């Protein structure tokens, strides 16, 4: 299963007139993240979360960075410590915003980090959990491009594993691109990104499934 790091490539359109402490804080946190200062970024998101108790985004991002930086960790103790923290952040976000498809997809990404570390140990229980998470997210938000993209990437990973054609999934990726382009970006700091990654996968799809 190929690790999905789609959300790592966030591009944010941030209003230049960042004035409220929230906007200032979030802008600063993204800047830290962009500069690979992951721990500092997580800490700032954690602090913002403590002030903005009814906003799920800061906790969501704190969790997301912990997850993304967990991939490729070789020490299981550190991995579980980080992912346990990540789960805490996501749980906090999920309490503020119930049945949020973006958070559900992040839970699946968290499981994927465990599976990527040791498929034999974690694969059996967590891959089923992921299927359920994607199913739930898709039923809540059928037109969310990130839900479709993550779910399709997961399916493609399994298809590749069994040397099945990934062609049927390429259509889903193209559908995700359409959804991305239709998406209205209205909420500041919302994780809208993913289009770039979808396009990249789509172009690989065309290469792999072309007749020659």
């Amino acid at each position: 299963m190929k690790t999905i790091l789609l959300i790592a490539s966030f591009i944010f359109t941030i209003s230049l007139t960042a004035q409220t402490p929230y906007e200032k804080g979030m802008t600063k946190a993204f800047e830290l993240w962009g500069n690979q200062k992951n721990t500092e970024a997580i800490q700032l998101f954690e602090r913002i979360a403590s002030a903005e108790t009814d906003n799920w985004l800061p906790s969501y991002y704190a969790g997301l960075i912990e997850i993304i930086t967990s991939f490729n960790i070789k020490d299981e103790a550190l991995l579980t410590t980080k992912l346990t923290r990540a789960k805490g952040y996501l749980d906090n976000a999920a309490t503020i915003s119930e049945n949020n498809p973006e958070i559900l997809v992040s839970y699946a990404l968290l499981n994927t980090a465990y599976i990527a570390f040791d498929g034999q140990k974690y694969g059996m229980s967590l891959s089923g959990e992921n299927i359920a998470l994607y199913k739930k997210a898709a039923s809540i938000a059928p037109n969310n491009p990130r839900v479709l993209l993550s779910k399709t990437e997961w399916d493609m990973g399994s298809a590749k594993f069994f040397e099945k054609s990934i062609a049927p999934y390429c259509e889903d990726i193209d559908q995700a691109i359409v959804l991305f382009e239709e998406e209205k970006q209205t909420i500041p700091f919302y994780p809208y990104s993913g289009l770039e990654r979808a396009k990249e996968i789509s172009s690989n799809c065309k290469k792999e499934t072309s007749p020659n």
Partner: protein
Amino acid sequence: MKALSLLLFTLIHVNLISQTTVYGKVIDNQGIPIMGANVYLEGTYDGTATSENGLFSFETEEQGEQTLIVSSISFETYSKSAEINFFNNIIIKLKDDVNTLDAVTVNAGTFNAGDNAKVTALKPLDIVTTAGALGDFVGALQTLPGTSNVAEDGRLFVRGGDAEETQIFVDGMRVFTPYSPSTNNIPTRGRLSPFLFKGITFSTGGYSAEYGQALSSVLLLTSIDEPQEEKTEISIMSVGVGLGNTQKWKNSSLSLNISYINLTPYQKIYSDDNDWHKPVASLSGEAVYRYKFNNDALLKVYSAYSAVNFDLTQKDINEIDGIRFGLKNKNLYVNSSYKDFLKKDWSIVSGVSFANDYSEINYSLAEITDIENSAHLKTTLNKYFSSRYKLSFGAEYFITNFSENYRDSSIDRLYTFDNNILSSFVETDIFFSKKLATKIGLRGEYSELLQEFNLSPRISLAYKSGENSQFSLAYGKFFQNPKNEYLKYDTNFTAENTTHYIANYQYVKNKQIFRAEAYYKDYNDLVKYDTPVALPISSYSNSGNGYAKGLDIFWRDNKSIKNTEYWLSYSYLDTERDFQNYPTKATPNFASTHNASIVLKCWIEDWKSQAGLSYNFASGRNYTNPNKRGFLTEQAKNFHSLNFNYAYLMSPQKILYFSISNVLGTQNINGYQYANEANTNGIFDRRAITPAADRFFFVGFFWTISDNKNDNQLDNL
């Protein structure tokens, strides 16, 4: 102009509001500065991270009482509410987070399997993909050190104890008849399907005060809380067929399983030493219902019914025509448990299990009817004071009613007894630090049948000696009422008991585990009788005793060879007992001095297959040769078995599985049966007790139908 006015405004604003500096230092419990800890005032944007020397300093405009939060990975989060001025030049000592993977674990005597365990000796898939285990969780556990290979029996024999000294629990509730009925020299299998469980804890000694009535070992199984999806599973095997279905609703789920096994076709193609009149046929069904309440409380009800039938004639040295043995068994088992979280970090777990076992046995000319009704009721309360201190206590009641009707041409008798036991226990888990932890428990048991009260203290201690290594010690006293086969004839007993002393060393690094454990067990008050077999007329006493001591070694490596996992186990056992009808102290015939296993699994990417090999070795077990003097002084030859299995994933949902036990066809000898009378030359003839068949083949096709196209029955194999 605009910028200037903003600046002016800001300056004035700042001047009007007084600023406080929050500063100090963050250290760990040894006084070493913690770098990069997140320090902030809760509910504000004011905060910073600590520098290399643990120092922090930030400005705030907040006034009055504030809460300072300090959080850092691998430490418990610190929180303190006080007037803002209190946080000037404050030194904050963070406590180690003891819930991390690298914290010490109190593990003497215990192996964990499942993904919820800190150190996993067996992974969930291992239970079903270990060659030679044939999908029986007991088979997989027999590759762990501390177990003795008793190939003709199939049950768990732990550290010099016999199979009945091991008790099995599902979700904390006792399983009264965990094994399918069998007869001499035909290994039994566990009744419970392995795929119902998410976690397995196998304790070979020194276990928690929550468990009693087991002298040697407990096997704790945790069932799945919530199935992941709706699905239908179809299995077509060389020995039978199976069908499973899982349905999910909003708060509940139901899984049903039915299987029919019939060995007639197999016996026709590949006959064995026995003369089968009716090869083993069994029909079994399981249902698991789970209901999740809105407050996270969970109710699980597991029920299983099985009917087993067989009839055969087995060779016997004393009977030219052999001995006929027929069995019809019906077994019903219900296990329900309820878990709820109460206020103030209390939680409660309550359960009831019930078993009804009915057997009709034809043994030679005798007809025997056994009926056993058993129940277990239990309630446990847990209090979570902190991650460093937990307390649990509870009470339980075991009810067993056994009756046996024995009929032959001259006798028709009924033997019956009630064996009820009331127990209570209290236990506490204390972490002194990330490096030192202890578990202390006390258990009291009152047996109505024996009219006695016994107190069992249990204590274990663990110390983390290095980054990857730790030492643990355990001590405990264990009581168990005598077996049904004695109680049905006599009840004037005291409980058999043993004391365990265990020392354990464990080294865990990056997908490699090394574990060495030494133990000493002291047995007392074992049952003795004075006839060749236990009979109604025998005279019984508790004058037996014995000991077992040994060393268990385990090594598992999932890292060094690509796509390959392997483990090695070795057990050394030195045990002697004077019990049953032994004239003297001797090593029982179920104990072998050396036991070793090698298990290897290899994932072959290009073939989408997993190949597995296992090799089991056991040194020869003792037997008595009446042609020589002495009791249990002879030794049978060593046991060897090389097993192979192969699983091919045809597609994500279709698996073809093949396995063969004892590939090399090694002629193993489990012991000898001697004639009751000497022949004309004055010599007692003997017959080697060998496995009925040298090899066992199994072929199966498993198909899963679900929305999720990737799920399969790997866990069913």
